[in-house]
C-alpha cells in the first residue's frame, strides 16, 4: 500500500500506509494522527483537514478545485502549498507523499 508521512506542527512524524482510493484526510483520522479535525467528514465544507503539501510533491497532488480554493482562502494559516486533505486521493503515484500540519485547524 502507498505510504503517507504526516508531520505535526511540533515535528512529530507519522508514517501511515493508506489503501488506494482513500483520502489523505481518512488516513489521518482513522489512524489517530492528531492535528486533522475533519469536522465535515470529507465534504470539502469546513477546511479543518488543512495540510501543507511538501514542495516536492506539489506537481503530483495537483491544484485545489474551486470549492476547495474558496474554503482554503478563509484559513488564516493558508499558504500557496495548502490543500484540504479530504480532496487528495491516494494513488500509487503518491507513494511517499509528505504533508505538514498547520499550527491549528479552524
Amino acid at each position: 500500500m502507498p505510504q503517507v508521512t504526516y508531520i505535526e506542527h511540533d515535528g512529530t512524524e507519522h508514517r501511515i500506509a493508506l489503501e488506494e482510493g482513500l483520502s489523505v484526510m481518512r488516513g489521518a483520522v482513522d489512524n489517530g494522527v492528531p492535528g486533522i479535525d475533519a469536522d465535515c467528514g470529507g465534504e470539502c465544507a469546513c477546511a479543518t483537514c488543512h495540510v501543507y503539501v511538501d514542495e516536492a510533491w506539489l506537481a503530483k497532488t495537483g491544484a485545489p478545485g474551486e470549492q476547495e480554493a474558496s474554503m482554503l482562502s478563509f484559513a488564516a494559516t493558508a499558504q500557496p502549498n495548502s490543500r484540504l486533505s479530504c480532496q487528495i486521493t491516494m494513488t500509487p503515484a503518491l507513494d511517499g507523499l509528505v504533508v505538514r500540519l498547520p499550527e491549528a485547524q479552524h
Partner: protein
Amino acid sequence: MNAPVNPASDAWTTPLDQLDPSHPARFQDHSMWPYFERLRREAPVHHSTTSPLFGPYWSVTKYKDIMAVEVNHRQFSSDSGHGGISIRDRPKDLRLPMFIAMDPPRHDEQRKVVQPIVAPGNLAKLEGIIRERAGRILDGLPRGETFNWVEHVSIELTVQMLATLFDFPFEDRRKLSFWSDCATAVPEAGGFIDSEEKREQVFAECLAYFTELWNQRVNAEPRPDLISMLAHGEATRTMSPREYLGNLILLIVGGNDTTRNSISGGVLFLNQTPGEYAKLRANPGLIESMVPEIIRYQTPLAHMRRTAVEDVELGGQRIRAGDKVVMWYISGNRDPEAIEEPERFIIDRKRPRQHLSFGFGIHRCVGNRLAELQLKILWEEILRRFERVEVVGEPKRVFSSFIHGITDLPVRIPA
C-alpha cells in the same frame, strides 16, 4: 401579542401538506421536536404553505440534504437581495447588508478581512483573558442561593468576550447585549422591540456609537481588533455606514446569542443527565468532547435560510427559482442516519464535531473555534470550583424559530 398557533394542530395527525414546523411559539415551549421527527421520516424535503408569519417555504430536515444545500452556494443563495438567511422576509429597505447575507465574490472579500481574529496566535492570546474573566465571574456567584445562570454567567461572559474582540469600552459592554437582543427580537413576541421602527431607532444609536470608534481606529495604526480590521481592510474600509452597521450586527449577534445559549444549555443538559455529569467530574478531560456535544445538542441557531436562484432537485423534490429553503439544523442534528442515538446527550462521542450547528461550506461560522474555546475554559474553571451547579427550576425559552435560546435558568450552587 403572540401570533396564534393552531392548538389543535398535532405533529402526527395534521395532513402533511398543512404541516408548519416554523412557528416561534413551538420553539418556546419545545413542542417542535415531533414535527421534525415526522418530516425526517415522511417528507425530508417538505413544502409548507400554511405559515401565518413566513409565507411558503421548503423545510430541509435531514443531515445529508442540509449538507447538500450548504455546499451548493451557487444554486442556493444567501444574498439579502433574494431574502437573506432567515425564514423571516424583512422589507427590502430594512435589510442590512452583511457578509453572512452575501454571495461570492463580495462575501469572500469581506470575510477575509475579519478572519484573522480567530487565527491560532490570536486565539492563544485570548485564552488567558477569557480564563481570568471566567474565574472572576464564577468567584462572584452567590452560594446556597437561587439565581439566573443566564443573566449572571452566560450573558456576562459572552459580552465581556465581545467587548474584547471589538476593543469596546468595557464599562459600556451591556450595550452590546442590548443591541444584540434588539437585532434578533421577534416583534410578535411583544417585548421591547414591538415594531421595525423601534428596531431602526436602536440601530441608529448603535451605529452612532460605533462610528466614533471607527473614527478613532481609522486614524491609528492597524490593530488586531474587529473595528480596526474593518476600518483598515481593503474590502471594508469604504463600506457605507449601513454596511458597517450590518457587519457589526453580524459580529455582535454571531458572537453573542449563540455562545450565550451554549453556556446555558450545558448546565441544563448535565443536570438532565446526572450520569454524564458524574462522568465529567470523574474525568475533566472529557470537556474537550463535551463542548461540541453541547453545541450540537443546543443548536443555538435553529436554522439558516437560502433562496434557490434556479430550479433545482433536492431529495426528489423540485424546488423552483425564487423559493425559500430553510435548513433546519436543529433537525439535522437529531437525524439518526447521521448521528448515533442523536436524542441523547453523550459527552464522550467519538466524532463530536460532526454536527450542523456552525453550518458548513463558505459561510461556516467564523467564530466556531473561538466559541468552543470559551466554553472549554468556562467548564474547566467551573469544575475547579464547584462540585455541582444545580438547576432548580424550569428553563424559560426564547420566542423564536431562529435563535434557539434560554432566557432564564434558575440554578443554585450548594454552599
